[in-house]
């Protein structure tokens, strides 16, 4: 049971801090039964079932976590309202993909418009799969180092967590792992095609 209650500022700070603080903040959001029920109800009212609703709730939390860490969440609405709007957006996208979009809005539409729109781009399933394949090729230790680094852990914390003797060793390992990841991406034809389009 999570006894802590977060306001927007505390929630954002916890997610950005990473580690156990991030974990507890996410858990707090996950354990909000009312919010989960609302997401599931929205999905069920729009041609989905309970399982789809639970999936959307999970996917919404994943997107929210990243948006908060990337400063895409501006704090203009409550974190929970923002999560609901992400879940709604994700499910609408899913319906669009399956070409069955006739959206039934929830009863309290007035409340909805107060919510920030999730602006962050959502990775396509195809890109997620390719990225997953590349990550599989990277060693477990490298993945852990890069995750911790991206979750704003200091080199001293990374060194302590992964058993390096000092910060310098952790920094060297991070450099080596990051470079390997880029080299693996460079060798992936799908990634390079996207890159060529961008360049």
């Amino acid at each position, binding site marked *: 049971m999570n006894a802590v209650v977060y306001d927007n500022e505390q929630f954002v700070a916890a997610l950005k801090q990473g580690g156990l603080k991030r*974990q507890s903040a*996410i*858990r707090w959001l*996950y354990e909000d039964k009312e919010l989960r029920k609302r997401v599931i109800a929205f999905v069920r009212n729009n041609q989905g079932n309970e399982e789809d609703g*639970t999936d959307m709730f*999970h*996917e919404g*939390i*994943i997107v929210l*976590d*990243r948006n908060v860490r990337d400063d895409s969440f501006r704090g203009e609405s409550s974190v929970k309202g923002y999560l609901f709007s992400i879940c709604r957006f994700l499910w609408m996208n899913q319906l669009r993909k399956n070409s069955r979009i006739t959206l039934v809005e929830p009863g309290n539409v007035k409340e909805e418009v107060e919510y920030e729109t999730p602006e962050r781009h959502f*990775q396509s399933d195809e*890109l*997620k*799969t390719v*990225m*997953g*394949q*590349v*990550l*599989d*090729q*990277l*060693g*477990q*230790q*490298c*993945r852990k180092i*890069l*995750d911790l*680094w*991206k*979750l704003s852990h200091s080199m001293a914390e990374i060194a302590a967590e*992964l*058993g*390096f*003797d000092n910060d310098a*060793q952790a920094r*060297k*390992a991070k*450099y*080596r792992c*990051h*470079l*390997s*990841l*880029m*080299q*693996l*991406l*460079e*060798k*992936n*034809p799908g*990634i390079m095609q*996207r*890159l060529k389009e*961008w*360049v």
Partner: protein
Amino acid sequence: MNIEQHFERIESYTEGGLSPAEKQSFERELTENAELKQAYGLYQMSLEAIETGIGNQLRQDLKQWEKSAASNAAPQEAKVVSFSRRLVQYGAAAAILLLVGFFGWQFLQQPVSPESLYGEYYELPSAGSIRGVDPGTKGAMDQGRQAFGEKKYAQAAQIFSSIPSNDPAYAEAQYLLGHADCQLQQFPAARAAFAIAAAQNDFRIKEKAEWYGVVSCLRVNDQPSGCGDALAAIAENSDHAYHDSAVALQKKTSKVWGKNSGR
């Protein structure tokens, strides 16, 4: 492309570590230097890849919490139990605890079997990691990967063995051959294939192959020579992808391969 040459500047730029003048110069160069722009694009892609990993981990955590919540929600009926009956229950529980403690202690004194350590440390490559395709070797490698994915390990082993040493996918073929041999319980052959894969110095394969070379050693009879040294080399290299696992395994293999892990 020489990524190393640009890496530090790109990272400093991305993390806001450049002075205003350096930042301006970097941004100008980005418009003029195609290689720098491509390296910058790759860096951005790498951040996306890391985020994918973080998202995947969080997805797993959420599923785990879901499972725990479901099992905790199982109905529990309260029972009214008399005091004397409770005393009997406590006595029985204490006796069971003593027995479990005694046999547990006995169990811990038993040497750890190499088979159980192998079961603990061996991991079959995930489907995702064997789906990549190297241009030029598409035919045989694809067939091998497909057979491997379909658990036709004998067929996969045959195909991977046929990939010649001058083929760009040779290291990967030997690495997957090692895994196919492990599935076929051909552990000496697996160990040899992993050694060949590691010797190719392909950065994508090398550390994995070194690690699984050691893991397959656990199932080779008569304490093969060199296994302890190979394990120690990984355990001593803190940059190695399997460093932590090797340190843990080294402690456990002291009971299997002797005090110094077979050295």
